[in-house]
């Protein structure tokens, strides 16, 4: 599977006059990749993810999703992408199932397929019994699960997730990893940020490390970490670049 799903070319985002949040960042995510994006707080991870999803305007560079430019064909890009922000702001006045139907309508998911997927993932994440309740009554973890089900509903080619494991119980986190592998085996790709290096090390086949907006390491997980743990490589790389 060497089809490019996401291609970021020389992405640069400047806040204010001269604060470079992302500086000339380039990377490629192929079909089947589970690509971990790691870095310190404020390194530029979320900015990159938001630029990829077309939510954030950037100053230079280009982003292609499934061959479409996010600047020129945003709707085509978004049709094959699912995005879960770090703190998904779901509509609290809707019930879980109303929210999923809304997402299904927007992405044009057929009714039969929709109910099949809702049933499958709601059972998997043990949330089926709560889908009739208002989202406002959900816990943070339940909201996260609902956002994940919404993201999976249209079988996206690319999933962009910002800290997807935060708030999930151990069982849900385990199931999510399983789902990641399953959809990547079917030709999709995952690009996600995380602070949990252990998860990144075990789950991702590729890793990118970002510091102060610059990509300082990326590639196959084995190549990036060598014989050491990802944690020690991460700390070492950061220290070297801080000097």
């Amino acid at each position, binding site marked *: 599977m060497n089809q490019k799903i996401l291609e970021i070319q020389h992405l640069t985002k400047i806040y204010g006059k001269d604060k470079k949040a992302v500086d000339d960042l380039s990377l490629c995510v192929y079909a089947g990749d589970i690509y971990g994006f790691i870095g310190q707080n404020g390194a530029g991870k979320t900015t990159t993810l938001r630029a990829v999803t077309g939510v954030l305007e950037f100053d230079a560079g280009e982003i292609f999703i499934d061959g479409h430019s996010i600047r020129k064909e945003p709707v085509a890009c978004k049709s094959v992408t699912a*995005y879960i922000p770090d703190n998904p702001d779901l509509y609290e006045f809707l019930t879980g199932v109303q929210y999923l139907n809304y997402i299904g309508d927007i992405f044009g998911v057929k009714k039969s397929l929709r109910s099949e997927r809702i049933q499958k993932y709601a059972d998997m994440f043990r949330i089926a019994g709560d889908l009739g309740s208002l989202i406002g009554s959900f816990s943070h973890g339940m909201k996260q699960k609902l956002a994940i089900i919404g993201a999976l509903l249209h079988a996206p080619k690319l999933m962009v997730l910002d800290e997807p494991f935060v708030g999930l119980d151990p069982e849900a986190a385990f199931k999510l990893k399983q789902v990641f592998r399953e959809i990547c085996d079917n030709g999709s790709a995952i690009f996600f940020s995380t602070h949990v290096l252990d998860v990144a090390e075990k789950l991702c086949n590729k890793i990118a490390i970002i510091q102060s907006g610059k990509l300082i390491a990326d590639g196959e997980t084995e190549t990036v970490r060598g014989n050491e743990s990802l944690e020690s490589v991460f700390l070492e790389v950061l220290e070297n670049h801080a000097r």
Partner: protein
Amino acid sequence: MRAKWLLLAKVQLLGMTGLNNARKSNDTRTKRRTAGGLVMVLVIALICIVYSVLFAVLLGFSGMARQLPSFAIALSSLIMFLFSLVQGCSMLFALKDYDMVLSLPVSKRAVICSRLFCTYLANLLFCAAITLPILIVTFCFEGFSFFMLGIVLISLLFAPVLPISIAAALSTAITAATARFRHKNLLQGILGILLLTAILVLSFSFSFGMNQNPDENLTAMADILIGKIYPPVQLISWTLAGKIWGIFAFVGGSAVVGAAFIWIVSVFYTKINTALLSRAAGVAYKTTDIKSSSCFGALVRKEFKRLLSSSAYLMNGLSGTLFLIIAAIALFFLDLQTVLQIPADEYAEFRALLPPIGAGLLLLLIAMSCPSAAALSLEGKHREVTFSLPVSARDLLLAKSVPTFCFNGAAGVLFAISLCLRAQADLLAWVVILVSALLFSLFNALFGSFLNYKFPKYDWTHETQPVKQSAPVFITVFGGMILGFLAIFLSFFFGIWVVLAIDVLCLLFSILVYAYFRKCRLSV
């Protein structure tokens, strides 16, 4: 498949009305709150209808029956324009669900359409509440006409488009110009207030600049409104007079302006939102910046910062305060006898009535500004943090009342001084009006917090919802307006004693609300 903008708009409407919450929630309080909100909307609609009918009957007897429909559209358009201007771009930019909506496969135009559609619907209802009763009065004077009914209904459907588009375009220009500044929210608030002031002054100058016969004030005002202040409505007048192309020009013009606005904003939509939602991090602090204060002082300071950090909150919360200041300045500099064209022999009588009437106006304008009615709701999803602080609910609610009291109290005293000087008031009037400025500000601030405690709205997607569309704000603003009009009406019979009675009531209710705060418990 339904258009995607309609799907987005449907969800926006569900959030705005709160109906889904009431339908799906098991909580009886939520259902009660929604029912209360609906009743309030109906009461407001009823007030609009009653005022419209009275005004229309008055104009009808002045021989203006034929112009009534155009007048109704012009009047509602002007009000919609001012309301939309006060609302600013809050319906378009920096909404909490921005990331979620923009990551969906919908065009920016669809997102903008869905946002504007909700505003359009709300304005359409308001416009209908004014125009339809006036149309019925017109039929009573002129006889029923299918032609007039058709033209007015078509005009009604398109009437909100121009005011909303123009107001939103002005607000967008301000937002775009200030988006990259560090204190953009404060700047937007100040520029918005300046723009609103300029428009109000301009409108008034049209009215006062006319050399008119005092006996024809009402008809002249209607003529000015149709012909000068809102010229597009002339097209409807011409249509009703037989020039059928007028309605096509009105509908076409409205549609073109609306579409052009949506297209232009869609080009800059992401750019403006990116600038608005980006926080300038990395500003270092100096150790000398760290100050300490009492717990209550910290809460109060936070409330002032909250008010000044949001243009929507600032403009909606302090519009009455702004009008009070404008009125105070106008009273100080304008010669009322010349402006209102009152004959010299009648002016002495009018001047005697000025203190109580002015006091009624003072109550009305203070009631229009009640940030405390939304302060608790604005805690939103982060209320857990505030409610878990080691402070009592009383202190929290009082702190939320302080900015309202300070701004209204100061503006009220300024207005009271200006009023008493202009009216050459006696000592009793001076004391009563000055005290009433402070007491009503106090009551308004405390009552706003009390209502917000009883009817909080934490699940908003933009600050405008608690600040402009929530039950406590409706009650304080419209309740205060009714009280103000009642005070003005009763002052014709009882003079300054009406104001004194209201002062006593305000004091009593303030004490009651304060006592109630001691028993309050805040929970998520």
